[in-house]
């Protein structure tokens, strides 16, 4: 069953009682919450996702409003993952952003069968462009713009690389836009669906962009790593692309990896294989149109082209 097949009132009842199990890529997350913003967010952003009311779940997430004095003068949301609370209470109008953070946290902290790269990934013609970057580099802006121009969304935040196959699995959850990039994307891609702004979060103002239906329905299709592109947004800069030597690319990528140290030999081998198979670049941009033009001209990665 798709989330969109559940009527709004029924969806809220289901979430507030036994919860809903939502499949996001290789994971099933059991979400339970009586909060209206959570029901609204699930209905808006997860409409194309498979769900069920019972069955196995990898993660159990619960978001509630605590019954304390804050409830009267400043409502809060508390959350738990598998019955443990990883975050302090936050203002309840941030509930949907908390859910998204909790979904990321659940993968960050409990997943060891994938190499997890902190970065967005999009796909075209079977090849994935990985955009690893720290916050503020413009990766989500670039990712959202590419998705609005026909690239398939694999993930906005956590890139999952299988050490066994070397392929990238899709998550295709909502894209989290921050601060100025919200206006930029709403102007650049008015045909996409954006959620309400969530103010005063730890990352400033956040708004989410809904993943395209095509990206969600093709979430089971893994992609071959093709390009490793380190984006950097710089006000007023013209687009600049520099090939990145592979040793340096390895070090840049490994320094930001969540579970590379835990995976040990498996992580090292998965990473060397990924770097071997991709063309690596540093990419500085300010104009989305210029950036889209460069991505549109990307040639198949040289290693893959040799094999064809």
């Amino acid at each position, binding site marked *: 069953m798709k989330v969109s097949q559940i009527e709004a009132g029924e969806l809220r009842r289901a979430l507030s009682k036994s919860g809903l199990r939502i499949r996001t890529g290789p994971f099933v997350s059991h979400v339970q919450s009586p909060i209206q913003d959570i029901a609204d967010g699930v209905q808006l952003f997860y409409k194309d996702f498979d769900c069920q009311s019972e069955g196995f779940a990898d993660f159990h997430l619960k978001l509630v409003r605590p019954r304390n004095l804050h409830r009267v003068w400043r409502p809060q949301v508390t959350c738990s993952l598998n019955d443990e609370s990883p975050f302090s209470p936050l203002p309840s109008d941030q509930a949907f952003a908390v859910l998204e953070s909790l979904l990321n946290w659940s993968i960050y902290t409990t997943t060891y069968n994938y190499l997890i790269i902190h970065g967005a990934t999009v796909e075209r013609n079977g090849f994935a462009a990985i955009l690893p970057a720290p916050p503020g580099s413009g990766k989500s802006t670039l990712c959202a713009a590419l998705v609005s121009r026909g690239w398939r969304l694999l993930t906005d935040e956590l890139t999952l690389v299988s050490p066994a196959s070397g392929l990238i699995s899709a998550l295709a959850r909502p894209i989290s836009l921050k601060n100025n990039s919200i206006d930029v994307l709403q102007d650049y891609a008015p045909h996409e669906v954006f959620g309400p702004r969530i103010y005063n979060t730890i990352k400033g103002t956040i708004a989410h962009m809904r993943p395209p239906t095509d990206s969600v329905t093709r979430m089971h299709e893994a992609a071959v790593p093709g390009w490793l592109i380190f984006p950097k947004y710089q006000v007023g800069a013209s687009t600049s692309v520099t090939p990145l*030597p592979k040793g340096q690319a390895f070090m840049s990528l490994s320094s930001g990896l969540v579970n590379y140290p835990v995976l*040990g030999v498996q992580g090292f081998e998965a990473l060397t294989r990924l770097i071997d198979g991709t063309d690596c670049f540093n990419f500085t941009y300010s104009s989305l149109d210029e950036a889209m033009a460069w991505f549109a001209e990307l040639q198949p990665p040289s290693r893959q082209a040799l094999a064809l």
Partner: protein
Amino acid sequence: MPEAWRAANLLTKSWPDGVVVYNLDSGSTHLLNPIAGQVLKLLIDAPADSKTIACLLAGQIDLASDAELDYNIASLLKHLDSLGLIEPVPA
């Protein structure tokens, strides 16, 4: 300076810009320039002293085997030791 050095428990991957080294015991990762990577690989092949490494390297990359090379290799070995990538062979 120890008589001889040996490599720690390592995995390596060579690319044109250098050699990435993963230390299996500490979990640390390093990028060495191609020359340092070559020296490390010689020690992975077999323990050796500084003089022997200098001679082998001179033969491999067409360098004059002289006092300057000996000094540079000795310095490099100290640096690799400080990174935990090599260790002295017990006497």
